[in-house]
C-alpha cells in the first residue's frame, strides 16, 4: 500500500450530522498498490541470487479516496453579528462549524494572507522611479531583508542619493512630495504615481509650490524628515505602501509633517491611511492631503498641535460607506 499519504486538513460538516464538529480527513495518494519496502527487499532477494520464486503477494484492497468535504457554517442565528458584518471587513459574523471556521472562511483567510505576504516580499524595480519621471533616491538599506530588519537604515538617504537630491531638487518648495515603497512595493507601483500627481495638482490649485517629484526605494516614513530638511520644504509629505493587512496589499498611506527635520517624531505628523480602491479613493485622498498641507502652513505646525477643526474638509468626520470584502476564493 502507498505510504505517500498527504495531509489535507479540511473543515467538513456532513449533511446528515448537523451538530458534528469538523472532522480531519486525509487525502491518500495511492501511487502504487505494492509496498515500497517489499519491492526493495524483493529486488535485493533477486540480486542475492535466490532462485525460488516468492509466493504472489496478497491482493491489496482498493483504498478509497476520502470524499471532498466542504463544511459550511450553520445558518446565521445572530442577527447582531450578521448586521455588524455588513459594516466592516473585519472577521465578524463568519459563523462556525463546531469549534472551527467554515471552509470558505479558512480559504479566504489563506488567500488574503498570501496577498499580504506577496506585497511585503515585492521590491520596487531599480528603474521604476526613472520610468515614472521621478528623481530616484535610495536609503542606506542595501537589500530587502535588511530593509525589513533595520527600520533605522530606511529613514536615511545614502550618500549618493543625498548628493543627487542636493544637486537636482528644487529648493524651498512649500510642499515636498515623496513617493516610496514602504512595506508594499505593490501599492507603490499600483497607485503611487497617480496619487502623487493628484496631490501635486491639488496643492498647486491651492497656490502652493510643489518640489521636484522624488521616489525613494527601501524607505520608511521618517525619510521625509531628511528629504524635506535638505530641500528646505515647509511641508514634507511621503506617500508609501502601507503594512499589508488581510487582503489589502495595495493600500497607500500618506504622512505629512510641517517643518521637516531630523528628530521629528510621530507626534509631529498627520496621516491618512487606507488609500486604495476599497478605502479612500485617490482623488478624495489628494484633496484632503492638499488641505492638510495648506492648513499646516497656515497654522505653522503639524501633528498633535494642529487644530483639525480649522481645516475644513480635511477634518471631515462623516462616516464613509463600509468597505466591501473582496472574495478571493470560491464562487
Amino acid at each position, binding site marked *: 500500500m502507498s505510504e505517500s499519504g498527504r495531509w489535507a486538513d479540511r473543515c467538513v460538516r456532513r449533511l446528515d450530522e448537523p451538530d458534528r464538529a469538523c472532522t480531519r480527513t*486525509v487525502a*491518500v495518494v495511492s501511487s502504487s498498490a*505494492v509496498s515500497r519496502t517489499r519491492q526493495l527487499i524483493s529486488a535485493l532477494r533477486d540480486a542475492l541470487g535466490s532462485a525460488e520464486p516468492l509466493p504472489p503477494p496478497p491482493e*491489496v484492497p482498493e483504498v478509497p479516496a476520502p470524499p471532498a468535504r466542504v463544511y459550511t457554517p450553520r445558518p446565521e442565528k445572530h442577527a447582531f453579528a450578521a448586521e455588524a458584518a455588513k459594516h466592516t471587513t473585519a472577521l465578524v459574523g463568519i459563523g462556525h462549524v463546531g469549534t472551527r471556521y467554515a471552509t470558505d472562511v479558512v480559504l479566504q483567510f489563506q488567500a488574503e494572507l498570501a496577498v499580504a505576504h506577496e506585497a511585503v516580499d515585492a521590491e520596487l524595480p531599480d528603474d521604476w522611479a526613472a520610468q515614472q519621471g521621478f528623481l530616484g533616491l535610495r536609503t542606506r538599506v542595501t537589500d530587502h531583508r535588511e530593509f525589513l530588519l533595520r527600520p533605522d537604515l530606511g529613514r536615511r538617504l545614502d550618500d549618493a542619493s543625498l548628493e543627487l537630491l542636493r544637486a537636482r531638487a528644487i529648493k524651498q518648495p512649500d510642499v515636498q512630495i515623496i513617493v516610496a515603497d514602504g512595506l508594499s512595493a505593490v501599492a507603490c507601483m499600483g497607485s503611487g504615481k497617480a496619487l502623487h500627481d493628484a496631490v501635486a495638482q491639488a496643492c498647486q490649485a491651492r497656490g502652493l509650490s510643489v518640489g521636484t517629484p522624488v521616489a525613494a526605494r527601501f524607505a520608511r516614513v521618517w525619510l521625509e524628515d531628511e528629504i524635506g530638511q535638505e530641500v528646505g520644504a515647509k511641508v514634507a509629505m511621503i506617500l508609501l505602501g502601507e503594512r499589508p493587512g488581510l487582503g489589502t496589499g495595495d493600500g497607500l498611506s500618506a504622512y505629512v509633517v510641517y517643518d521637516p527635520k531630523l528628530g521629528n517624531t510621530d507626534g509631529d505628523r498627520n496621516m491618512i491611511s487606507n488609500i486604495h480602491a476599497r478605502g479612500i479613493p485617490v482623488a478624495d485622498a489628494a484633496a484632503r492631503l492638499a488641505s492638510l498641507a495648506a492648513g499646516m502652513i497656515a497654522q505653522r505646525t503639524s501633528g498633535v498641535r494642529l487644530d483639525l477643526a480649522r481645516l475644513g474638509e480635511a477634518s471631515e468626520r462623516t462616516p464613509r460607506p463600509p468597505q466591501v470584502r473582496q472574495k478571493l476564493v470560491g464562487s
Partner: protein
Amino acid sequence: MILEPITPRVLSVRRLPNASAAMVRAYGGDPDKHRSLGLVTVDQDDPTYVALDEATKHAPIDVIFAKSFYAGAAHASGRLSGEILGVIAATEPEAIEAGLEALLRCLEHDACFYAADPKATVTVFPHVITSLGEYLSREASLAPGEPMAYLVAPPLEASIGLDAALKAADVRAVRVQTPPTETNFAAAWLTGELAECEAAAVAYAQAVVEVAASPRA
C-alpha cells in the same frame, strides 16, 4: 528462503467505543478527547509501530499506547499476547474504525519482518517509511511527511547492518536502540532523502543476510 516476507499475525483487535476515563488516563490518553479506543495485539512489534503510524495518516486518531513485551512473541504471556499492544484513541468510534482499517492493511500488505536465512531463524525488519505520520514523526522528532528507514534485527546482525546502512547511504541516525530491548532485538531509525533511506534499508538487509550466512567470518 531468504528475504521472504513473514506476515505479522494479528492476534486480537478490539474496540472500546466509550472507554472509562480512568482507563484512558492510565494508558496515556486525554479522557476529554479520547473516548473511543481501538486495541490490537500482534506477534511482530516493529511492523505494528509502523502500522500505528500509518493509521494516523488515514484517520483523526492518536496513538496513546504502544509497548513491546519482554522477550518477544516466542515467549508470550498468552495465546493472544503476541509481542505488542497498541492502542489508538479518538473522539468518535468511526475514526477508530478508519484507523484500524489502515493499520490492518499496513500489517497485511506492507510492514513485516523478513527471513534473513533459509529457515527464518534470523529475521530482519528493513522498513522504509516513505512519509512519516504523526505518531512516529513525534517519536523521532522529525516532521510529518519526512521519509525514515526503520531498521531492526537481532543484536549483532543489527550492529553490522547499521554500520553497513550508514556507510551505504547519506543518512543520519535519528535514534539507535542498542540491545537489549524488550524483545532483545536492536533498532535504528535513519533519515535522509527517500532514495538514501531506501539504499540504507537495502544495505542493512543485505548485511543481516550476510551475517546470518556466515556468523563467524
